[in-house]
């Protein structure tokens, strides 16, 4: 399975290499004002997540406490502790999309992908596509007027 494979490569990567890369990213932003979110976004973009071991590295570079960095990481919905699986489906559950069937779309999406470990389904509150809802994002691509069939079409394009 793709997910297990990913975790394995993570483990095989020498820890110091990751730590070094995280330090380097942090140092790249350290001279800016209030750089922590920028650093977290950059680390996640590079390594797929903010791992437990990244936190002390970042804290050290910024001269912050580990608790402070951890507090910031855990506050925001975007930051993840483990790498994302191969496919990500985000469904908007906010009011404007609910007005055109988002609740049903959300339930159907959860059900459809429940058995697939390589697909992560997440709720999102508003993509700013509220005039053309229901909205969903499939592997990072925003879609409007989404139907269950659209999800099936996307899924059929994924190799297993």
């Amino acid at each position, binding site marked *: 399975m793709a997910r297990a494979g990913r975790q394995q490569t993570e483990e095989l990567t020498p820890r110091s290499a990751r730590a070094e890369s995280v330090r380097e990213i942090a140092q790249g932003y350290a001279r800016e*004002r209030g750089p922590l*979110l*920028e650093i977290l976004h950059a680390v996640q973009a590079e390594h797929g997540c903010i791992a437990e071991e990244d936190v002390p590295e970042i804290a050290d570079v910024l001269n912050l406490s580990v608790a402070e960095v951890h507090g910031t990481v855990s506050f925001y919905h*975007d930051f993840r502790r483990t790498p994302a699986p191969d496919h990500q489906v985000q469904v908007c559950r*906010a009011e404007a999309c609910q007005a055109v069937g988002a609740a049903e779309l959300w339930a159907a999406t959860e059900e459809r992908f429940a058995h697939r470990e390589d697909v992560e389904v997440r709720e999102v509150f508003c993509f*700013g596509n*509220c*005039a053309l809802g229901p909205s969903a994002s499939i592997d990072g691509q925003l*879609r409007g007027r989404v139907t269950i069939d659209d999800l099936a079409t996307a899924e059929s394009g994924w190799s297993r």
Partner: protein
Amino acid sequence: MTTVWVPADSSARAVGADAVAAALAEVEGVTVRRNGTRGMLWREPLVEVETDRGRVGYATVAPHDVPGLLEAGMLEGADHGSCIGVVDDEPWLTAQDRVSLARIGLAEPTDIHAYEAQGGWAGLRRALETDPADVVEEVVTSGLRGRGGAGFPTGVKWRTVLQAQAEQKFVACNLDEGDSGTFADRILAEADPFTLLEGMTIAAVTVGATEGYIYCRSEYPDAIARLRDAIAVAAEHGYLGDDVAGSGRSFRLQVRVGAGAYICGEETSMLESLEGRRGEVRAKPPIPALRGLWGSPTVVNNLLSFAAIPMILADGGEAYAARGVGRSRGTQIFQLAGNIARGGVYEAPLGITLRELVEDVGGGTRTGRPVRAVQVGGPLGAYLPADRLDVPMGYEELAEAGGMLGHGGLVVFDDTVDMARMARFAMEFCSVESCGKCTPCRIGSTRGVETIDRITSTPAGAEGRDQLFVLLEDLCATMTTGSLCAMGGLTPVPVRSALTHFPEDFGGSPR
């Protein structure tokens, strides 16, 4: 060569604009250019063909429509199928009073020469020749009130920052736009980013700020990319940097990206986030105008507030103030969303009624069923029933009708909506998005969800049911009075409005 415009707006892209652009790019003799949206989102992808008559539009074009359209003479602007005629003559557009949106969709968003040709930078030039105190007075005269929700007079805020004594001052644009049913910030940022940059630069040179930040939510990747490009182009042409338009004044601007937290739209929470912390709301005072980013005086405005500024400076505050109703001056960009036939952005003077917007402009529901409820002003706004739509859209006028203008978003629901479910969702949203600082908001919202669940699962007339309504009202009262910010403080508004206007959805409330 025929020039064909295909919007690169993210809503247009969400319904296939990229594939349409690719299909057209294959056609011999066609140059595809990517503009922003004209705001008629229900017609996206809206393809425009340049002809002698003007730009002729073809609505909701799919890639497989392209061969047929070409055969029918699309490149000559032939009237066929989805053709809507010359787009500039479209009544939905001509009926508007576009001030802040005047330039959207006309050109490539980062074409700085097109921006200049369309009157761009005139406001900045005037601001640079004018005494800062007089610039502030011009903004005061315009009557502009914060378009982000609270409606505080922008000129008064700027005056506070101007008069504050400090080594360093900042300007920050709130582009968090977390409200459901709102997308005008995004559209303007994607379609016409220089208008925002010009508005922020005017603010900076006026109050004496040398650094600025645009805090953009992560859900808007296209806006982030577009703004970064626009900043680079503006700097290259000397509108940002050490010598703003040759004035010798310095202003540097950067985009910062949020990380998925509704509360970071609240201004003090946004400042915390910009500083790299948890987005917990700060107690006020001190106000950000005196102690904002890193303790320095900071102008914090919504994108639409900044976007009104170039015109106010170019044409004068009086011209802006001449529009509107009561104490709500100028224009508002209304966002028509949810179950609506013609969804999009519509700029009109404040005072237009909700009914005109929903029925005439929006064309009623997309499903064709009767309108049952309209939520005005975002997730913390009231649900107004269909018989209250004659309210004029103004800050005071809406407040009197139990609603609020917020960021100008309207979300329409037809008669199939379950209002108990919407009330439950309001509480659920608050529990998910609370910053966690106050107990009424953090815990009360969870209790609210549970209580509504118990109400809807208890049969009418059952013992103890009345007490559940009392408990819910009690929770609402505690949240209203015991919360530090409007997240906890206003969540009871949608809940109570649902209970008041749609009791039958809760199985009938006790009298």
